[in-house]
């Protein structure tokens, strides 16, 4: 027994380290595409902690590809998706992106969710001069010539979210987020906004991705007695956070949270009971009332099941495929530089309303929407910006953000 204790301890510690890289599988399809198909890469986490969110975006992207193919494809050719698994592991994203570009020779890649995965892929796309369409709201302060950002940047989601809280008289805010680039950068923006708008930040707490023990954090929040919590947690942690927030007796009336990474899909896993009444900030909800949306929702349910919901990142991923296809049609080729040039000004009526590509920073004009989680699990819009907001990833149009762009 005596010696074996050490012998057993060492491999366990070694494995604890290895667990971070756990679960890598990939599925490729379409090698048999032949000469007349256009290969496009779809790169999301299909396993690991981010799979909960990213699988749904993949589904939406595949639906868009299917629809475009059914309508005759692009430039007379069918799109052939090559699906890869980023496995919630950032180096894997870079590796799979390289594989898609170099080996599969895809025309473009749709993929990523966490900012960490985008930051890992960015140098790959810039070095190889390939295109990435990134479908998730993010922290801004970035504008790569080889990435199109179809989700919101800060001034289309976080700033409207703060505007709304201010309007509601919620001036004492507590910040809770996962410990990586998006929440940390987002909170810098929030603090700069708060300083300029007479809001007070009572606390700022980060937890590792995949963290599930929130009782201490909830205790800190409860002690600080904020008017509202601004929540930038990502992935499974949201489930634990909202369950434990509710068991601590915190209600949406007494202390609402404004979440920027919780959409319809996450609401299901969190449990409506635990999150009903809390606020979210996005550009799209399943309930958004546009003709394009009713078509999108019914097509998605028909393909993947009537119990499925649609969410903002799914819609942004779905849009990405259409926007790319439109740019390719305009350019008359899938060649990257030509597509980039043609993309500026491309405008489409999407489920969230009119989306226009800003040719300069390659972000989208998007309408901001604040919603409340309903007891049926869907999200009801309570405020919108009225018109698409011009993307401003470096917040140049906001005097209070002057110090951020530099850093």
């Amino acid at each position, binding site marked *: *027994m*005596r*010696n*074996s*204790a*050490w*012998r*057993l*301890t060492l*491999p*366990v510690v070694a*494995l*604890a380290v290895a*667990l971070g890289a*756990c*679960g890598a*599988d990939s599925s490729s399809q379409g090698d048999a595409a032949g000469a007349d198909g256009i290969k496009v890469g779809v790169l999301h986490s*299909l*396993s*690991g*902690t981010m*799979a*909960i*969110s990213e*699988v*749904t975006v993949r589904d939406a992207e595949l639906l868009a590809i299917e629809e475009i193919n059914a309508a005759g494809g692009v430039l007379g050719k069918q799109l052939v998706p090559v699906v890869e698994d980023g496995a919630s592991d950032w180096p894997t994203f870079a590796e799979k992106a390289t594989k898609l570009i170099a080996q599969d020779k895809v025309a473009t890649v749709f993929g990523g969710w966490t900012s960490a995965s985008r930051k890992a892929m960015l140098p790959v796309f810039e070095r190889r001069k390939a295109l990435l369409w990134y479908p998730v709201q993010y922290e801004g302060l970035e504008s790569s010539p080889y990435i199109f950002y179809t989700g919101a940047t800060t001034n289309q989601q976080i700033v409207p979210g703060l505007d709304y809280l201010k309007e509601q008289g919620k001036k004492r805010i507590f910040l809770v987020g996962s*410990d990586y680039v998006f929440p940390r950068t987002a909170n810098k923006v929030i603090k700069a906004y708060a300083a300029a708008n007479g809001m007070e930040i009572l606390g700022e*707490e*980060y*937890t*590792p991705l*995949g*963290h*599930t*023990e929130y*009782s*201490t*954090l909830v*205790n*800190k929040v*409860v*002690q600080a007695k904020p008017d509202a919590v601004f929540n930038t947690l990502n992935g*499974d*942690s949201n*489930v*634990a956070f909202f*369950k*434990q927030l509710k*068991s*601590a*007796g915190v209600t949406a009336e007494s202390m609402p949270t404004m979440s920027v990474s919780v959409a319809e*899909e*996450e609401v*299901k*896993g*969190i*449990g*409506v*009971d635990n999150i009903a009444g809390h606020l979210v900030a996005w550009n799209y909800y399943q309930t958004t009332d546009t003709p394009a949306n009713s078509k999108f929702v019914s097509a998605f349910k028909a393909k993947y099941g009537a119990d499925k919901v649609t969410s903002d990142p799914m819609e942004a991923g779905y849009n990405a495929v259409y926007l790319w296809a439109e740019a390719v049609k305009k350019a008359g080729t899938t060649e990257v530089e030509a597509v980039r040039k043609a993309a500026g000004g491309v405008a489409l009526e999407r489920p969230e309303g009119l989306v226009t590509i800003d040719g300069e920073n390659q972000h989208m004009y998007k309408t901001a929407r604040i919603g409340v989680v309903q007891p049926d699990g869907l999200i009801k819009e309570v405020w919108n910006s009225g018109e698409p907001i011009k993307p401003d990833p470096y917040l140049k149009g906001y005097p209070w953000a002057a110090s951020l762009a530099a850093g």
Partner: protein
Amino acid sequence: MEAIVNQLPIGLSIGAVLLLIALGLTFTFGQMGVINMAHGEFIMAGAYTAYLLQGWAGGQAVLVALPVAFAVAGLMGLILERTAIRHFYGRPLDTLLLTWGVSLVLQQLARDLFGAPNVQVQAPGWLQGGIGIMPYNRMFILALAIGSVVAIWAYMNRSGQGRRMQAVMQNRRLAATSGIDTGRVDMRTFFIGSGLAGVAGVALTLIGPVGPALGTYYIVDAFLVVVAGGLGQLRGAVIAAAALGLLNSYAEFWSDASLAKVIVFGVIVAFLQFRPQGLFVVRSRALT
């Protein structure tokens, strides 16, 4: 000040979660020396059992699921032990790789069966609310952990089967010579150890996510408790879980969640320098 006092029950309830997830491991890892990386997936199986029983038991699914999950996870463990692990006794590194592979397979299986997104298990109405900072569901977990410890203690020390289990653990060859069917005892140990993981999984549905990756969030903590407590030591596991829970709670209170993890790991590493066998050691004359 109030917050500091509040951290005490929070620490104990974190300790209760740690104890629940580690209890099964004190059997399989501690007593049999099997590094079972699939232990986390048995926890996951317990959580999904509660989810599946929801259609039938509704809001009381968590309660109904406790015995069922014990049986489901126990059977999974039994099958794993009979078909694979028993061929690898005495080869911890091989078992580690084998069970890690099994854990990946089980995760993917869950993803295929239940989908990648999390599912929701409804908490029973009588577990909503709480007294002060201590929610009823945390008290339930604490009570469940204490109940499990008492049950295991009674089984180990008051039943013939439990005593045979201890005999095999302390000296396998001598036990075998004395007429104990060690293969049977191994099966039983593995069944109970895995079953306890299932019970932990049901409890975790009250506070955390229920999804295919569930096991990976808890497996490292479970091993930490067993290693720090001393292999095969029930009271070691209890004390280690409580100590780690309190340490976690106060470290996070005074710093943040990321730093608290670092502090906990640091303390354990330092502790193992002084006591590589953990808190308690089985004194045995066996030549191992």
